[in-house]
């Protein structure tokens, strides 16, 4: 964010829609101002007091009331002429996925209770039309009657909201457990996981620690190499040395490929030329405020460029797409080495390459998965967003495309990513993180009656002010609630990887599997199984259900991914690979020889860096 904007807040008081105050006794007081168009300013801190005086002054011009739902949120009272037209807009709901029942509801004359009404229709739509039904909307009459009569899971009839009208408000999830976050994995702890040969013992336990607290920055560059598939989890030091040597050779071979294309050749190679142009532009505008990339002629810009160009050779089908430089930048800063950064980047891309495909299907699927999750997790917010043209969750696009890279500060994004890369506590945890952030913004969105543009603006503007640890705690809590919800629909279980693989219908598992974040070296999973040694896996939150092996391919070409350390990330969804009931049964991977807890820091042997 631009520094000037940060310290220079100026707006017309009449544009003020609401503001958020800091929690009392929480350090310096601050106020976050939110305007009618959704513009949300960075927190204005009052180091020497004065926030109350300012608000008092403001009250001379506007009427302020406190939100009944969020004690920190204050709303500027106005008689909001747009309100009526907004509620009329709510009537034109569901144009894209309308079903017969919904249409009837919408056309019903009882349109006076618009607010509650949209909730009812949404709720019923959720219940009557599971996502698979969208194409085939008609249910047998008897079935509908049955659903309506007795068993709508979690339906609660509340008579509080509006006298005279019954409101069906929410599905009831189990209470949210409190979740603790811990300290990051320390260097000493890390070393204690290695035996004399440099095998890592108790990999699952190690991942649990990383999930719960991240990694100390001093060992990040080593730990990430495992998380991102540069090294196999079950390798010994000697094998890692070989792996590394091979990867260095392979990198420079690919780098040479584009380096040796002459300008003359390139004139007849439009595709490469275009990619070079894009990379050129984006390298110049990637995290230039970070000291690692700051300043003109910073040599690290060249490294960024070279890695992205080489990635084009590594995965020519995908090439370069905007956003990739955002993925690479934190990795390069941690690795400080071209080759290591390249391979770790390739590993990170393996998890998100579907975000960047030409048809954008990967993005569409994930945005709709957030929608499905929210229908269960927070039907009220979900109904609101749908009623305000935001049911497509486009406002989460940037979050998902580059895995929150622009939403958090640099050191935070490194923490968040290493947590996500543990694949805990479930598949697609990043989608639940989205739910957690949205939950925190819920009262702001609802009580300000934000519409499509304001929602988008507000969500864009909270970038860099989202509290990371709190969000992670909340997200894990939401996951636990969903996992323990007895009537959790299978479609949701599938998104979260909570279904045993045998229950997965092949067609749907495809869609789902693309976000599994399958490990870079899926081939290694077979060796895990051969090793066959038993591991005691801490049951952090085993979700029940049998385990399934990773790297289960669904189509003939599915095996492609397992070659060459998961080399080419396919651009075809159908080719994606890897269904596992991650976290399902626990006994998924066997690692090393088990038991031994040799303190040798074998894994650190090969830390010599190759600077180029």
């Amino acid at each position, binding site marked *: 964010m631009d520094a000037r904007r940060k310290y220079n807040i100026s707006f017309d008081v009449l544009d003020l829609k609401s503001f958020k105050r800091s929690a009392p006794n929480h350090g310096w007081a601050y106020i976050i101002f939110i305007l009618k168009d959704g*513009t949300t300013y960075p927190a204005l801190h009052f180091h020497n007091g004065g926030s109350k005086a300012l608000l008092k002054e403001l009250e001379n011009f506007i009427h302020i009331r406190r939100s009944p739902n969020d004690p920190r949120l204050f709303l500027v009272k106005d008689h909001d002429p747009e309100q*009526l037209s907004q509620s009329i807009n709510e009537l034109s709901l569901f144009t894209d996925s309308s079903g017969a029942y919904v249409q009837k509801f919408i056309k019903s004359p009882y349109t006076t209770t618009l607010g509650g009404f949209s909730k009812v229709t949404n709720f019923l739509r959720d219940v009557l039309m599971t996502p698979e039904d969208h194409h085939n909307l008609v249910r047998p009459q008897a079935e509908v009657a049955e659903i309506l009569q007795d068993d709508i899971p979690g339906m609660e009839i509340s008579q509080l909201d509006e006298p005279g009208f019954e409101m069906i408000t929410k599905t009831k999830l189990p209470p949210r457990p409190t979740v603790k976050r811990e300290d990051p994995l320390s260097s000493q702890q890390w070393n204690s996981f290695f035996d004399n040969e440099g095998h890592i013992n108790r990999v699952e336990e190690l991942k649990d620690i990383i999930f719960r607290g991240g990694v100390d920055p001093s060992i990040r560059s080593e730990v990430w190499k495992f998380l991102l598939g540069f090294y196999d989890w079950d390798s010994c030091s000697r094998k890692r040395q070989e792996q590394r040597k091979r990867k260095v050779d392979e990198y420079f071979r690919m780098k040479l490929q584009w380096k040796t294309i002459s300008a003359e050749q390139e004139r007849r190679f439009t595709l490469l030329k275009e990619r070079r142009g*894009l990379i050129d532009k984006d390298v110049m505008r*990637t995290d230039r405020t970070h000291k690692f990339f700051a300043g003109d002629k910073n040599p690290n810009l060249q490294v960024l460029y070279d890695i992205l160009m080489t990635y084009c050779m590594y995965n020519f089908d995908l090439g370069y797409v905007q956003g990739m430089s955002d993925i690479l930048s934190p990795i390069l800063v941690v690795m400080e080495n071209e080759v290591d950064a390249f391979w770790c980047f390739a590993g990170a891309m393996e998890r998100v390459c579907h975000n960047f495909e030409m048809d*954008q299907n990967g993005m569409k699927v994930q945005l709709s998965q957030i929608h499905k999750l929210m229908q269960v997790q927070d039907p009220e917010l979900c109904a609101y967003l749908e009623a305000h043209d935001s049911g497509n969750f*486009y406002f989460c*696009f940037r979050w998902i495309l*580059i895995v929150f890279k*622009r939403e958090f500060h640099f050191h935070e994004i490194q923490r968040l990513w290493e947590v996500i890369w543990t694949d805990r506590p479930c598949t697609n945890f990043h989608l639940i993180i989205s739910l957690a952030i949205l939950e925190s913004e819920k009262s702001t969105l609802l009580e300000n009656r934000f519409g499509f543009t304001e929602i988008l603006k507000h969500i*864009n503007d909270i970038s860099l002010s989202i509290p990371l640890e709190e969000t992670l705690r909340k997200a894990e809590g939401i996951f636990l609630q969903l996992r323990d919800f007895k009537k959790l629909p299978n479609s949701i279980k599938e998104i979260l990887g909570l279904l045993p693989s045998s229950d997965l219908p092949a067609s749907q598992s495809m869609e789902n599997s693309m976000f599994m974040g399958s490990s870079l070296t899926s081939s290694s999973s077979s060796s895990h199984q051969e090793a066959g040694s038993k591991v005691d896996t801490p049951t952090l939150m085993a979700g029940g259900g049998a385990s399934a092996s990773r790297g289960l391919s669904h189509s003939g070409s599915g095996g492609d991914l397992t070659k060459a350390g998961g080399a080419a990330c396919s651009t075809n969804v159908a080719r994606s690979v890897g269904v596992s009931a991650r976290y399902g049964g626990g006994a998924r991977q066997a690692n090393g020889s088990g038991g031994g807890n040799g303190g040798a820091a074998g894994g650190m042997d090969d830390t010599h860096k190759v600077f180029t």
Partner: protein
Amino acid sequence: MASRKKVLLKVIILGDSGVGKTSLMNQYVAKKFSNQYKATIGADFLTKEVMVDDRLVTMQIWDTAGQERFQSLGVAFYRGADGCVLVFDVTMPNTFRSLDSWRDEFLIQASPRDPENFPFVVIGNKIDLENRAVSARRAQGWCHSKGDIPYFETSAKEAINVEQAFQAVAKNAMAQETDVELCSEFPDPIKLSGDNNKPRDSNCPC
């Protein structure tokens, strides 16, 4: 009650990646330039109040990602656009050649009621750079062939002509807006007296 309702004009900026869409928007709205803007991901907008023909107008200016594959999602933001600014970089001929497809795509997706007369403006940006590769004549030729789209040469960096270009699109969009208002089939839902300058306790018409 005179029709004095607040006018909101939605303007979309389109063009290839790196032609300066974000910079133009920020120069116009906030009068500032930075060469540290990041590549736009998704979409964002800024609003600015301007006077157009003695009417106070709120311009909502939308900035979208330039890379082609993001268009399929970008179209969600085209809906309801009142004007469109097509941008190319005068030092990059390929960004000029893309204008055709940007314009076509916009017209297909936004499907305005009168595509022939939809208020476009074309901006040739980065005239502060020396290695110019698209001549003004060539650009004007294209604009002429597309129904005399107004053409502006700008530098977002040095704030040359930016104001004029956006003012033009606002003016043309307002002209259309007024036409539409006259033949509008829908009655204005709510009429407001303009000057809402003072807080009122309870003035709710219901």
